[in-house]
């Protein structure tokens, strides 16, 4: 029986998987991100759309549940679980690892969701309104709770290491990757599947975010509606999907000759301690999170080449983030680049931090920074390079991903070439 190498305290990424409004699978969606395509359309899966102030979203095109689970589960699982299972399955295949009994004991799962099975909640609650509580499905609770993506991915692959979920709204995916990184770093697991999944495009989800006045009402121009950092932005566009990474102890990955995408070196997280939905106006929590990630990575701010911004296209959030970037990076803020790919795939809430970390990793691999599309009149400091509309080639050695969430959560992850 082989013996696993001792934990090295260093963590690399050896597999990636994604379900996004620009397609399922990294090979499908990444070329579209680089090409600056929009995945935003008029909502397909809801009726009576005229009742909603926001009628557009990033839904998953051509997603077939039975490609990933049996027909029985395809019918009854909440879409947030189906997306998570699909992304995790792809990431695990990409990692190309032999799951020995010994490794399964050291392999954990941490896939969060900002909300969980909201569509199931919406559909099953109807039985209560109809005074038929005994018609609520026995699968409602297990397939609604936000930890079940981690549970199912563990059950399906017999992964018996650390297992739980994180709920931190729109910073969930980044928190999950950061916490999974620290689980491996401290030696509690050799490998982790980590990320986030979300399926909020249903009547109660859309109505709820509309009520927060957080979403765009540019319904007549779906592909132009998500426009971070642009003067005419008017709120975010909701997206669905999941992103997962396979994280691995570096020595374990080297010993098995794994393909290494990058090393995770810094994880910062903080709270604004200010308001439930509005970011702190001076971005103090965001700055703290970026500073913590830099300190833990042991690098100077000047080392960062590219930031994938939280940049949701809201009037308040975008300028706050750039102020925080300027505070942390000083003059270097004008040398690095900060783009928001939410301009293309929308805001996938709890999946955002994971999908966008994955984008950072591919950007570094290919030496190309994805654009912020729909940036026609830059509303932030004009000296900041938001990679407007067209991807830019650049050798990237260190990249940073920001994710912020309702509740005042802030997360920053730093990755470098492995």
């Amino acid at each position, binding site marked *: 029986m082989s013996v696993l190498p001792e934990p090295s305290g260093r963590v690399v990424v050896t597999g990636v998987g994604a379900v996004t409004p620009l397609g399922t699978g990294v090979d499908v969606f990444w070329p579209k991100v680089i090409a600056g395509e929009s995945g935003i359309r008029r909502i397909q899966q809801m009726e009576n759309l005229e009742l909603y102030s926001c009628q557009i979203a990033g839904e998953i095109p051509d997603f077939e549940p039975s490609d990933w689970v*049996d*027909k*029985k589960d395809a019918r*009854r699982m909440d879409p947030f679980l189906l997306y998570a299972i699909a992304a995790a399955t792809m990431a695990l295949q990409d990692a190309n690892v032999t799951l020995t009994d010994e490794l399964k004991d050291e392999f954990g799962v941490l896939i969060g969701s900002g909300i969980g099975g909201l569509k199931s909640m919406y559909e099953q609650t109807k039985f209560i309104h109809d005074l038929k509580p*005994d*018609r609520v*499905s*026995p*699968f409602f609770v*297990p397939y609604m709770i936000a930890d079940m993506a981690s549970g199912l991915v563990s059950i399906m692959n017999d992964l018996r290491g650390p297992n739980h979920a994180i709920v931190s709204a729109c910073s969930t995916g980044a928190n999950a990757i950061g916490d999974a990184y620290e689980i491996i770093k401290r030696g509690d697991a050799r490998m982790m599947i980590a990320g986030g999944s979300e399926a909020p495009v249903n009547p109660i989800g859309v109505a709820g975010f509309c009520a927060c006045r957080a979403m765009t009402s540019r319904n007549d121009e779906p592909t132009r509606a998500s426009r971070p950092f642009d003067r005419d932005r008017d709120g975010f566009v909701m997206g669905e999907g999941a992103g997962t990474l396979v994280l691995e102890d570096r020595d374990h990955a080297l010993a098995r000759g794994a393909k290494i995408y990058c090393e995770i070196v810094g994880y910062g997280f903080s709270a604004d301690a200010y308001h439930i939905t509005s970011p702190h106006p001076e971005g103090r929590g965001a700055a703290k999170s970026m500073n913590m990630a830099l300190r833990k990575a042991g690098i100077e701010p000047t080392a960062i080449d590219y930031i994938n911004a939280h940049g949701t296209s809201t009037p308040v959030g975008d300028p706050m983030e750039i102020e925080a970037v300027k505070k942390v990076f000083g003059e270097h803020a004008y040398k690095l680049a900060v783009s928001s790919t939410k301009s293309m795939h929308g805001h996938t809430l709890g999946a955002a931090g994971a999908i966008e970390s994955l984008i950072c990793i591919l950007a570094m691999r290919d030496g190309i920074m994805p654009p912020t599309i729909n940036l026609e009149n830059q509303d932030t400091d004009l000296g900041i390079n938001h990679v407007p509309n067209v991807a830019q080639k650049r050798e990237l050695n260190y990249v940073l991903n920001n994710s912020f969430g309702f509740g005042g959560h802030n997360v920053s992850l730093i990755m470098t070439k492995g």
Partner: protein
Amino acid sequence: MSTDIFERVKKVTVEELDVKAEEVVTEASFTEDLGADSLDVVELVMAFEDEFGIEIPDEEVGEIKTVGNAVDYISKKVAG
């Protein structure tokens, strides 16, 4: 045993448990032969209730272990 009821039980079972029609024979146990877990059984019973317009009280669910049990139980209920 009613052929009509058997065919309808078979149809519901195939849909709910995602099994092949030829597996749904009178002697087949839902849990041991047709792969149902405890939650599947709850959902299956609800589907029988919908299909036949009957109520199956929780304390009587235990009588329904096989396809044949279901057909017999439903036949009695429908007749009653």
